[in-house]
């Protein structure tokens, strides 16, 4: 029996002993459990640190691969034939994709190890929406999707970490595009959130919606959990680290905001997040 099992099933072993002896046994088991939990936490922290170190170190050889690829692509060592160019572009695209995935793992590991810091500046959310929309335009075109960006006029600027908010938006919009079939609709809306009684500060509410496959209600919590993908079968039609929403949640929560989803299978998804216009601390 493992130590955890012995804690969870103490009464079965206590048949003929006195109450005092049972208390003593339970106290001893409790002490063991406390030690066990501390050991597991320490090991978990080590693994997280390992993940942060290894994902950072992976960037170095990738940098060399991508740089050499670009030297060839840009004709710095002479002109390439069209077939050679196609092959070199494949190396660069593969390298860049891998670099992004490694970057996501690094951000996740830093978040889990509480090594992410928020550097707030004042900016208009509309600018970030436009920037993310431009970055995704080629994919949107390729899948023949309609992307609508809409920000309420006269929204006050937010005081937030611009890169991290852009990261949240990129992950949400990336998912929306990935999980929406060809010809569908994807939208991003920013508006002033109505103040609830418990809230002292006005927030901006951002919605990222799509007409895609949707998410069953029982999976609404699962999708924000680390390493979870709703379809974890070996065939996995959708690839990626499975960390996009975990990272999005972490980054929103670091701003004192919150993130959630409204969706049903087959009826698209609407992800929302709220970030206060001004930080309290």
């Amino acid at each position, binding site marked *: 029996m493992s130590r955890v099992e012995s804690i969870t099933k103490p009464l079965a072993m206590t048949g003929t002993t006195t109450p005092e002896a049972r208390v003593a046994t339970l106290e001893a088991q409790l002490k063991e459990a406390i030690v066990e939990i501390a050991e597991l936490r320490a090991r978990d922290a080590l693994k997280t640190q390992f993940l942060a170190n290894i994902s950072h170190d992976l960037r170095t050889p990738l940098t060399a691969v991508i740089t050499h690829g*670009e030297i060839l692509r840009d004709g710095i060592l002479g002109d390439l034939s069209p077939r050679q160019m196609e092959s070199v572009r494949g190396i660069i695209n593969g390298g860049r994709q891998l670099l992004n995935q490694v970057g996501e793992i690094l951000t996740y590991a830093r978040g889990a190890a509480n090594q992410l810091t928020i550097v707030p500046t004042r900016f208009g959310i509309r600018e970030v929406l436009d920037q993310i929309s431009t970055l995704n335009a080629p994919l949107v075109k390729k899948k023949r999707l309609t992307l609508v960006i809409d920000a309420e006029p006269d929204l006050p600027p937010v005081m937030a970490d611009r890169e991290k908010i852009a990261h949240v938006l990129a992950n949400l919009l990336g998912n929306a595009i990935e999980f929406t079939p060809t010809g569908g609709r994807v939208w991003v809306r920013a508006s002033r959130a109505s103040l609830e009684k418990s809230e002292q500060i006005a927030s901006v509410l951002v919605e990222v919606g799509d007409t895609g496959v949707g998410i069953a209600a029982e999976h609404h919590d699962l999708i924000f959990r680390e390493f979870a993908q709703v379809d974890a079968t070996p065939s996995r039609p959708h690839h990626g680290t499975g960390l996009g929403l975990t990272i999005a949640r972490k980054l929103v929560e670091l701003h004192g905001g919150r993130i959630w989803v409204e969706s049903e299978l087959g009826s698209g998804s609407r992800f929302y997040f709220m970030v206060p216009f001004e930080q309290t601390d």
Partner: protein
Amino acid sequence: MQGHVLVVEDSELVASALSVLLESAGHRVSIAGSVAEALALSPAEPRSLVLLDLTLPDGDGLALVDPLRALRWNNVVALTGHDDPDTRARCISGGCVDVLVKPVPARELVSKVATWLG
């Protein structure tokens, strides 16, 4: 404008990719793989530039900015794998003229190096 570029970088893979790129653009390239190697250098010639990695096997790359300046390597550009505002701020306050995040697109690096050397 062509010149002398010192690449302070502990990864031979990255250093050799950068030398191929910069030599093809007509620059002379020297490589230092550690703080100690960089400190053993002779004074800079006119029109020179340092591309500085931050994490070196024997210390923090930023600790090299002042000693390199004493050797008249005045143009120091940080080349880092850390893409975050903290690192950027640390490099600028540490005396770097600019901060680039690896991998810098090849064409962008060539054109920036030409500007700094100009």
